[in-house]
């Protein structure tokens, strides 16, 4: 198990830190799942979480990292947790989270369907890394 601490992520920037984390999990060779706890976002940028507190990353770093994770072909699933609508009466938190998801997944779609990555004509399939049980 490897840990990447907030200070390091802030220093490197979210995108670069995420890229390094993907290398740590050998993402090029193995499928992975991403867990996004929304309290990783600094409270001043996203307060509508179950347990607000200090220690989160600024939204731009979270976004950069999340986009980097989402773009990877071996991401097979993700969950988004801890957003609490009771703390978001106006719905701005939901909108922000939806926009973040759409931005990251749009980047994924672009990355996976770019001309250089396209499979043979007539097929939209992406081969797995071959570790199906």
């Amino acid at each position, binding site marked *: 198990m490897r840990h990447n601490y907030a200070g390091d992520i802030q220093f490197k920037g979210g995108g670069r830190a995420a890229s390094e984390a993907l290398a740590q999990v050998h993402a090029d060779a*193995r499928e992975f799942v991403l867990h996004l706890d929304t309290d990783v976002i600094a409270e001043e940028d996203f307060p509508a979480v179950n347990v607000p507190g200090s220690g989160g990353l600024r939204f731009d770093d979270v976004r950069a990292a999340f986009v980097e994770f989402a773009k990877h072909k071996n991401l097979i699933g993700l969950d988004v947790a801890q957003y609490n609508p009771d703390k978001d009466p106006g719905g701005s938190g*939901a909108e922000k989270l939806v926009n973040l998801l759409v931005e990251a997944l749009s980047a994924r779609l672009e990355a996976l369907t770019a001309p250089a990555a396209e499979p043979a004509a007539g097929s939209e399939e992406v081969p797995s890394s071959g570790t199906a049980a």
Partner: protein
Amino acid sequence: MAVKIVRQPKKIALIGAPSSAAAFSAGSEKAPAALRAAGLAEKLQGAGYEVVDYGDCAPRLFAADDEHRRARNLTEIVAGLNDLKTRAELAVKSGALVLVLGGDCAQVIGLLTGARRYYKHVNLVWFDRDADLNTPASTPSGRIDGMVVAHIIGKGAAAGARAGRDAFRTREARSTGAGVSQQVADAP
């Protein structure tokens, strides 16, 4: 019998997991509905995805459960994870990217378990303010959300660790720490 998963890059499988049973407070069980109401599926479709909605699991609600102060609501949590696992298996098999709308942090176990039905090796990237490595012995709250990763690596309460072991096997954790924002586990 081995099943070949053909991944579909333009497809998203959406699953709602309205659970606060593992959480430190109520409210997160409302998140799937709120995100749907904010137009998540429609915006993903607008971005070019085909979105297949597998619906929501049954709600699992926050409760005090003072009878089990070191692992609260575990029965309810595991029941919810089994529900999610069933949906996640179908979603993973379809080849779509599976997007689970939590809910509390424990829901990732249901997703992992579903993925493990078809992928022998699945790694986990944990993007969180907290390491969630408390165990029933160390927890100050008894809330499973503070112990999710511990359960994934088999160090939590028995019922939860069984669910976690079904989802994931890892090497021994080499370190713990506070203020972790990303944490990576390698499957053998």
